[in-house]
């Protein structure tokens, strides 16, 4: 049975700014998976654990966060904070006996780089391999 994963991406304004150019069509042309829904936030440091968990509650099979490079965050430590919250959710998923790999953190430079598209493809491939979320089977 074919499985089209629902994936939620939280990305900071700076890292994702070019991805929204041309109404996002450029991103699609570069091969960014269409099944990824992007939520832009002013800074990934603002993303709470509850926001990440809610994405799973709302039916996400996978979640990922893309923020600034560790040593180059526009808001100094925002993406480092985000990475720690992603790690906290990984730990919580493990406690529920769910694959921790259903959530990941990526630190990428700002603008539309091949790495941004690659992160999306990586998550899409991984979640397809993991299968549907055990929270909604």
């Amino acid at each position, binding site marked *: 049975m074919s499985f089209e994963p629902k994936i939620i991406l939280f990305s900071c304004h700076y890292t994702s700014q070019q991805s929204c150019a041309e109404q996002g069509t450029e991103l699609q042309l570069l091969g960014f998976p269409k099944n990824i829904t992007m939520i832009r936030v002013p800074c990934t440091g603002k993303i*709470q*654990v*509850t926001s990440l*968990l*809610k994405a*799973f*509650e709302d039916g996400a099979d996978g979640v990922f966060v893309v923020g600034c490079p560790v040593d180059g965050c526009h808001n100094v430590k925002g993406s480092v904070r985000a990475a720690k919250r992603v790690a906290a959710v990984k730990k*919580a998923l493990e*406690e*529920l*006996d*769910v694959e921790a790999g259903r959530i990941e953190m990526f630190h990428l430079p700002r603008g539309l780089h091949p790495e941004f598209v690659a992160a999306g493809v990586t998550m899409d491939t991984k979640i397809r391999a993991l299968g549907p979320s*055990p*929270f*909604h089977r």
Partner: protein
Amino acid sequence: MIVAERKPMAEIIEMVRDCAKILVLSCRGCVTVCSAGGEREAAALASLIRLGLKKQGKDIQVIEGSLVRQCDKEYIDGIDQWNGQYDAIVSTACGVGVNFIANLRPEAVVYPALNTTFFGGSAEQGIWMEQCAGCGDCVLHLTGGLCPVARCAKSLMNGPCGGSVGGKCEINKETECIWQSIHDRLGGLGKKAQMETIAPIRDWSTAGHGGPRKTVRADLTI
């Protein structure tokens, strides 16, 4: 403050597995400050409970509530606003809060979401350290303000034990030898001679060994 940490999710899920609706009740006292059971942590817990039970194919209705504290009768009365909306309360307060709900609401099923760990303070952001054991007979005036009851692994009154190396405890190499610290601190304060006073055998009856303790301020009672 009282420091606590969330119980493992498997333990919490097991508590509520037969419930159809629960109230996750946070406390805005100590456990908010130590980021274990405040409104934010309760929201995350509510989400994890829903997810954990969904994974088992069960739907549970989780409502969230918050009290200023769960260690005072007048605040516990606030629980009544959720009457009829839950089968059980999952309290994110310390053990005191859970006890208070059990004491004052005989009809309510209440479960602890946290393990209450110690009296401590925030050493730095995200790190809390035990500082006081609540032993009921404070000796801090003799030890430069550093507690040997809570912070010496052996609760020695006449330390150090001789097992510490480089100022670190032999029980845990990451823990400072508090008696070394007491010695250094008293020396720095010009009170080194205080270390030579032998503390007598201690009466631990104030430390809870005689059952639950009670404090009465007659001038405040009604």
